[in-house]
């Protein structure tokens, strides 16, 4: 067995690190204030309604949860797929995965109508509900990744354990994202959901979003701590990101082609693809163009070894992912359910109408608070734990353990 010469060191407490922490802390405080405001006054102060029952908090929460499983890609590349170049990046991968998941769950819990009943949720389980299964999958994910980190970080644990534990974490993250996609895939009532492709689509999204978030966080941590980050190391991950972005586009294409073929889904497809206003704009403009085609063109033009361009690619993929989740979550609810096929339906309860939704500040702040929590938790972990190598230059030798 060769010796791992990568040295992991805590991030030093520089002025830049403190400044970033304060900014994130401010966002987290704003998110908590927004939660208290909604808790005190009721959800009437948000843009959500009895038509759009899940809003911006769910867009952020699902983004974070999906990105969480994807952030583990980097560790999986090293442990499961035996790519030594990713080995020094594994620890941050695990920490980021747990932090993103915690941030997403925080938003979900704080948006509940009765967040004070969290204990009720932890003591009453309906095993026919995919939500219940997700609670077990999320908790298990945190436990498995924590063990995965311990196996990697504790020098008394033999390195042969890294691969089996990493494989378990990889399988678990696939199950987790299947569960997240199935929240929508198993909803038979609404024309925008009720599709088995939701699970693999969400897995593809997680691969892309998680890696994009990872690269941005890695760049930020290295910049804040003044550490060298080799452009080729980043370029390798960006090329992988290109593959994931292409897979997301492929599943999106299949999703809509399948729907277009069935006459019963034609109305919903016209809504998303042509007549849906903001949803159509987000689909074509943000999800497909800015979040899909532009990053692909940038990646395959071969200039992503420039750090700025790599960050831009990741930013666009993240933006596209947020747009995609917004279209799925909000667009899927905005289109009316067909209770009476063949009839034009009207009522005092917005039957037959496209539901309106304008996110308000409290729900946006709550969502951003979850993002801030995830980033802050990662930063604190990098400050107190040895998860980030001191030298990530392209010439630093990395040996396979």
């Amino acid at each position, binding site marked *: 067995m060769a010796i791992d010469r990568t040295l992991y060191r805590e991030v030093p407490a520089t002025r830049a690190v403190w400044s970033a922490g304060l900014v994130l802390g401010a966002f987290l405080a704003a998110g908590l204030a927004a939660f208290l405001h909604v808790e005190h006054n009721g959800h009437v102060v948000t843009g959500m309604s*009895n038509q759009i029952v899940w809003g911006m908090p769910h867009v952020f929460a699902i983004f974070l949860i999906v990105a969480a499983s994807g952030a583990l890609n980097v560790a999986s590349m090293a442990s499961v797929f035996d790519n030594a170049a990713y080995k020094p990046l594994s620890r941050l991968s695990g920490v980021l995965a747990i932090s993103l998941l915690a941030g997403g769950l925080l938003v979900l819990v704080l948006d509940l109508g009765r967040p004070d009943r969290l204990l009720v949720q932890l003591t*009453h*389980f309906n095993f026919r*509900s995919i939500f219940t299964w997700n609670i077990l999958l999320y908790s298990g994910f945190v436990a498995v990744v924590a063990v995965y980190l311990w196996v990697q970080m504790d020098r008394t644990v033999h390195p042969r354990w890294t691969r089996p534990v990493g494989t378990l974490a990889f399988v678990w993250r696939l199950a987790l994202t299947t569960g997240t996609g199935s929240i929508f895939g198993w909803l038979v009532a609404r024309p925008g959901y009720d599709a088995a492709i939701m699970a693999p689509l969400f897995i593809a999204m997680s691969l892309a979003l998680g890696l994009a978030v990872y690269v941005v966080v890695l760049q930020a941590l290295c910049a804040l701590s003044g550490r060298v980050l080799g452009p080729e190391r980043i370029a390798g991950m960006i090329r992988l990101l290109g593959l994931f972005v292409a897979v997301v586009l492929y599943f999106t294409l299949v999703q809509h082609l399948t729907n277009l073929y069935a006459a019963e889904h034609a109305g919903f497809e016209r809504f998303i693809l042509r007549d849906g206003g903001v949803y159509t704009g987000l689909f074509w403009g943000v999800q497909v163009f800015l979040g899909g085609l532009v990053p692909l063109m940038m990646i395959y033009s071969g200039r992503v070894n420039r750090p700025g361009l790599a960050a831009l690619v990741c930013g666009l993929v993240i933006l596209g992912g947020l747009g995609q989740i917004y279209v799925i979550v909000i667009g899927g609810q905005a289109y009316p359910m067909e209770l009476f096929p063949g009839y034009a339906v009207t009522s005092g309860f917005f039957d037959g109408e496209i539901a309106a939704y304008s996110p308000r500040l409290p729900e946006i702040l709550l969502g951003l608070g979850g993002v801030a929590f995830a980033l802050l938790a990662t930063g604190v972990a990098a400050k107190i734990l040895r998860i980030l190598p001191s030298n990530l230059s392209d010439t630093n030798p990395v040996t396979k353990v």
Partner: protein
Amino acid sequence: MSCGAKKDVSRRDFLRSGAALATMQLAPGVTLMAFGGSEAQAAADAGKRWGLLIDASKCAPDCNACITACQDENGWKGSGHAETDVQWIRKVTLKDKSSGRETSLPVMCQHCESPPCVDVCPTGASFKRKDGIVLVDKHICIGCRYCMMACPFKARSFVHEPVTNQKTHAPRGIGTVESCTLCVHRVDAGRIPACVEACAAAGHGAMVFGDLLDPDSDISRRLAEYPSVALRPDLDLNPGVRYREI
């Protein structure tokens, strides 16, 4: 309640019901049962399946008697925020796209035999009684709204604002989900739902309530005699609410 149903009540349910009864004795006028799962189940008769038959041809377009009666009975009302106001029952107007013919009918919880809201509820707060009535246990609803995403009939509402002047038999709470209870408190007392009573009082008689399992009940005889439909029959949920003359 039939003797057969009594046998179904477990010792735990019996003790829970006793505890609930004791609590009610300690706090008269305040019901703490709040459609708690075991208590509500204990009151149900497994030998019955309660249902509604709604005759759209008898439903007057300008009549809201069923909605008003439901509001009065169960203590819900609009607060001026149409998009967030709760709606246990609503009048829907249908216009045939080819002929232009208009029909009016009420839509509420369809009390499905296989309710998607019950399947998706993570805590089991959404539950179906043995007599087919679908309810929300207000004690353990966490307000996740997944049931609202899953209901194909848009029958459930989330309480967006603080509620006042609640009825003791129909407890409500901000941050929880609610829907038509089929006036379970009246049904358990041998009465019919308020909407059905009001529709008859208004002279329309468009709504019939009864036991779908009893072949001699009025609703069963009418269902056997005339064609009727369930909403979203493609989902095969076997709702307890049926419509005719749509």
